[in-house]
């Protein structure tokens, strides 16, 4: 294992100037780039005021084949979720740990709500997210002790609760939020998912089919906050 390492690094090093001064300058350039992690270029569509970004997020996520709806409060969003599940005859929901979600009266609409990682055969999951990125209608969702990643991939439907204050313009804005979260949690999570629309494949004759291996539907509930 080590021999491969030394061999490769030696070959790479041989291709650049490694005199003392050049080496020091190169190391400094690398260290600075990493330390500053400055954005390279943020396209104009990643910028805008709150209302613009909300509208752009809705437009881009819808275009990417996600369902998006706006709700005044989280309670209202939960009620809408329960209605939608009931209409489709879905009787079980798997979620991340969230006190308010667990307190919601799912049972009266014939829905069993469970907090656990997803399993094969699950119909629907509900998760929070870290950010909604307006430039492409993308959700950023991170794994955590009570937030297993399988919830985003195994169920047929993935429902996501997004607060309007979590909507940002660009990927770079979302990385800033991730860095803030990392400071609180002590580092990078195992998984950061950036999800744009529902699962799909065009591998058969280049014709788009929805629901390849991940969720067949991605449903986003935006809770408006002042």
């Amino acid at each position, binding site marked *: *294992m080590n*021999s*491969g*390492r030394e*061999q*490769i*690094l030696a*070959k*790479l090093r041989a*291709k*650049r100037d490694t005199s003392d001064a050049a080496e020091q300058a*190169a190391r400094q*350039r*690398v260290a600075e*780039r*990493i330390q500053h*992690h*400055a*954005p*390279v*270029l943020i*396209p104009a*569509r990643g910028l805008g005021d709150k209302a613009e970004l909300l509208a752009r997020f809705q437009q*881009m996520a819808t*275009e990417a084949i996600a369902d998006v709806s706006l709700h005044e409060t989280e309670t209202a969003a939960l009620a809408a979720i329960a209605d939608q599940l009931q209409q489709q005859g879905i009787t079980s929901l798997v979620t991340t740990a969230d006190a308010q979600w667990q307190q919601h009266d799912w049972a009266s609409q014939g829905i069993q709500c469970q907090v656990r*990682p997803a399993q*094969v055969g699950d119909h629907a999951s509900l998760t929070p997210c870290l950010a909604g990125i307006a430039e492409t209608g*993308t959700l950023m969702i991170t*794994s*955590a*002790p009570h937030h297993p*990643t*399988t919830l*985003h*991939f195994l169920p047929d439907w993935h429902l996501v609760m997004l607060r309007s204050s979590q909507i940002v313009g660009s*990927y770079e804005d979302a*990385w800033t939020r991730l860095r803030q979260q990392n400071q609180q949690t002590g*580092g*990078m999570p*195992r998984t*950061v*998912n*950036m*999800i*744009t*629309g*529902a*699962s*799909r*494949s065009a*591998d*058969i*004759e*280049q*014709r788009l089919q929805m*629901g*390849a*291996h*991940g*969720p067949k539907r991605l449903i986003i509930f935006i809770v408006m906050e002042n």
Partner: protein
Amino acid sequence: MEIHSPEFKANARIALHDASLQKALGNLRDGFPRKRAIAVSRLPEFEQLRDQARDLKNHILSHLDLYLETFERNCTANGGQVHWAADAEQARQQILDICRSVGAKTVTKGKSMISEEINLNDYLEQHGVQPVETDLGEYILQLRHDHPSHIIAPAIHLNLEDVSDAFHEHHPKYGFTERTEDAAELMAEARTVMRKHFVAADVGITGANFLVAETGSSIIVTNEGNGDLTQTLPKVHIVITSIEKVVPTLEDMSLFLRLLARSATGQEFSVYNTLSTGPRRSTDQDGPEQYHVILLDNGRSDMLGSEFQDMLRCIRCSACMNHCPVYGSVGGHAYGWVYPGPMGSVLTPQLIGVDQAGHLPNASTFCGKCESVCPVRIPLPKLMRHWREREFERHLTPSTVRQGLWGWAAFAKRPTLYRWMSRSANFLLRRLARNGRISKLPLATGWTDWRDMPAPQQGTFMDQWKKRQQSEQQQGGLL
């Protein structure tokens, strides 16, 4: 994958006569270029992003060892294990060792061209580990004992009937006994079958589109979600990738992500862009217990500092092949190895040897379309020309070509004779033409069997040049 590059000419001839392949290639020609053009037109900063991506890649390549060391340090700090593989053999061995250490019987695999490059599936199978491809296209190919013909749409050479046949042959054991030609039903079948594999696998192997030095993470970009299930459900996640994939920071990665999907499928963004950092945390409820990254060199360090260095900027988007008239006519298999199209014509001679693949760069009309769409501005025609020069120097060019060039040179060195000859040829060709096109030309049926030859303009180049010079002088005199 076995090497069939030396047979390019024969392969191409067969491909041109293969009606079902030609039908399938029609889907590609109609699809990707149009979608890319729309996506590009919607992002005004696209050209500027391409410049910056080129410059950033150049910066990375001139500090490659330093960024790789930084990646290794941060990956290890987050609990990951980094393995360096100088060549394909080392990489295969490392992967097998990891599989054996956990007694793996089956491994699921996300789509990875590097895994094709090192011929991983055959190797694992020979050593008692069963690989299962999980990308829909790759899965279809595995059932058919076939190989990818495109780097992001691996089964582009197949039609619906081929998929129906493959599933009908292999899926009855899962309860699917009816043959269907409904694409949605076929995909639903694959979804059901694959879930059993996802859950049963001991190890999940994925590629990586980028490695982030700052965080020690790898990222995969997919639309299906198969890569995510591959890397989340088994005990062990192995990432097989190559050394040029490292980028400094998350912000730097964003630059490439903005270019990748738009250049590839014409999507604004791929559905799943997933960043993995280390194994599951002690308090996580799912995710792999081990996270390994294999960094493969396999000839790439030789390209650094050579005239082929620019090729190391490639982000494997496939735009060059999607826009290539040669690829669009013969498909990917004709190129005879893992990487087809213009990027393959440059990369393949480097990776498997100029003696095996030095003629691939001739499979180009030098129209320049590939370079014009490459998101990291790789001068692909120039690099193909370098290989041609090398091939010629090493006398690997076929004798007909050498004699032809020698004959041309004999005339070109004698201006009077050359002018007389070209005037006569010009006259004769115009006599042969109907409506400005020549549909049959002796000694050039290799061309005219497939398309008309345009008839020459009035007068040779030298005659026209002289006339132009004269008229410019006259105009200049009048001013």
